[in-house]
């Protein structure tokens, strides 16, 4: 269990966290979203006991971080922002140090290190000084360090920043593959990551929680949620059919994509209208022999929801 209640953090005049509360149970993977400076990293620093909150409490697996930081930190694995590491060490000596600090010794230590080295594919750089590693490899050493003791609560600040696509995929698999009795918090600026791995998303801005729901619910807040998008073979095809399509029953609005070949039909508010829009559009296109290369129903566009919720939406 991880409980954050009424957290505030003040840096002088600046309020970095303003009354954040949430509760996570084992099995939950929380995605922390928010614009730069929203307070994501600060919240993570408070949860891990690095920063003392101005007020509010954090409880990790029954340990109050303020009164029993060491107890809480035993349950925690943490990748700080930017993955700071002891640069003069090698991944091998560094991981051995972390194991030792965490009281893992002997055969168990060797086992755990071997396991995280293979999870993070670090075999090739084990004996290279960390300062000479590429950014992505440094991040992977930081991740290996965080999961070394198989923690109950894993807190990762932008874990996939700087990773190549294959490694990104690996890390997401690693997070999803954690057993169901763990709690994970990741912060990220990659929205698709949230739909890919998280069971819950919290959007914060200016230190306050603006949304707390599942990624699916987040998608359903999108204007594009269940809208029908038609891709025409060319711009003139789109222009020919646009007016007719936009006057179909239940269509409440249309939008043309930047590439000018995609037309989106937004359904109205009434029950079942998204389905009717899709069906009517298909019938119309068949009936009029339109030159269409694709037609699909949107899930919802997270980037748009994100901009809207955080108030960064640029109205067009």
């Amino acid at each position, binding site marked *: 269990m991880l409980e954050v209640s009424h957290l505030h953090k003040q840096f002088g005049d600046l309020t970095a966290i303003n009354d954040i509360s949430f509760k996570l149970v084992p099995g939950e993977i929380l995605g922390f979203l928010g614009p730069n400076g929203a307070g994501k990293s600060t919240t993570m*620093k408070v949860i*891990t*006991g*690095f*920063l003392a909150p101005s007020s509010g409490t954090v409880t990790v697996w029954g340990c109050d971080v303020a009164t029993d930081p*060491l107890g809480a*930190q*035993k349950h*925690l694995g*943490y990748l*700080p*922002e*930017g993955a*700071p*590491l*002891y*640069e*003069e*060490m090698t991944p091998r*000596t560094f991981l051995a*140090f*972390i194991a*030792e*600090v*965490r*009281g893992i010794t002997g055969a168990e230590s060797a086992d755990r290190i071997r396991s995280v080295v293979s999870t993070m594919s670090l075999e090739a750089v084990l004996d290279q000084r960390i300062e000479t590693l590429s950014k992505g490899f440094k991040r992977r050493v930081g991740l290996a*360090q965080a999961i070394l003791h198989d923690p109950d609560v894993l807190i990762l600040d932008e874990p996939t920043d700087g990773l190549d696509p294959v490694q990104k995929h690996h890390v997401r698999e690693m997070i999803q593959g954690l057993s169901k009795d763990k709690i994970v918090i990741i912060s990220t600026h990659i929205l698709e990551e949230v739909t890919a791995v998280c069971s819950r998303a919290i959007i914060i801005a200016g230190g306050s929680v603006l949304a707390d729901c599942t990624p699916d619910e987040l998608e359903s807040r999108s204007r594009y949620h269940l809208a029908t998008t038609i891709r025409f073979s060319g711009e003139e095809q789109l222009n020919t059919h646009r007016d007719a399509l936009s006057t179909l029953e239940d269509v409440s609005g249309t939008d043309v994509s930047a590439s000018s070949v995609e037309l989106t039909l937004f359904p109205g508010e009434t029950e079942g209208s998204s389905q009717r829009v899709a069906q009517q559009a298909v019938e119309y296109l068949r009936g009029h022999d339109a030159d269409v290369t694709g037609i699909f129903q949107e899930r919802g566009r997270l980037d748009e929801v994100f901009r809207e919720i955080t108030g960064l939406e640029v109205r067009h």
Partner: protein
Amino acid sequence: MNGVSVILKRELLSYFATPLAYVFIFIFLVLSGVFTFYLGNFFEREQADLTPFFSFHPWLYLFLVPAISMRLWSEERKTGTIELLMTLPVSRIDAVLGKFLAAWLFAGFALLLTFPLWITVNYLGDPDNGVIFTSYLGSFLMAGGFLAIGSCMSALTRSQVIAFIGCGIVCLLFVLAGFQMVTGLLRDWLPLFLVDTIASLSFLMHFSAVSRGVVGLADLVYFLSMIGVWLAATVVVLEIKQAD
């Protein structure tokens, strides 16, 4: 205690992972030699003892100890590893102790490497090895006091340069407090008991007492409490401004 020893080990290894350790030891040994043989008139005195060697130690430490201690915490702040360290299940006290002990052991190791001087005086004459031993002990304790001050200065800032200068200045004050010129000056201005109190806080007074061959309880208590107080101050500083 596990925390202290693990951190101590990591720190010691990291000294020798960079050229810093070797450069430091080299400079320390060269300066020890220069001070002893040239400035200390080692041969001209025609006495088989290490008095000239040890009498320069407070001054030598003034700029060599800050060079060791400056990186203790400033570097962690600068690179952000302090966030890693302080979120591992290690208490602040253990971390402070582990780092300090590593630096102290390192200084002790450098001190040990001056053994050729000891061999030389024993070859040239018949020195009082008891005195030499207590002088080494006194010098080691003094290095510990300097390092504890340096640890606190280093915890205050993310800049190693500022940590170096801060440590140098504070240590200088604690050395000068017992310097005869300074106590003489102070006597004109302050009541005697105050001058004595200030002088009794001086590294110089206690070090010269020990290097005469007598390890008094007062001197031992002085050095150890100096170390204790400054390490406690380090813990407090880290607690107050851990994240800055």
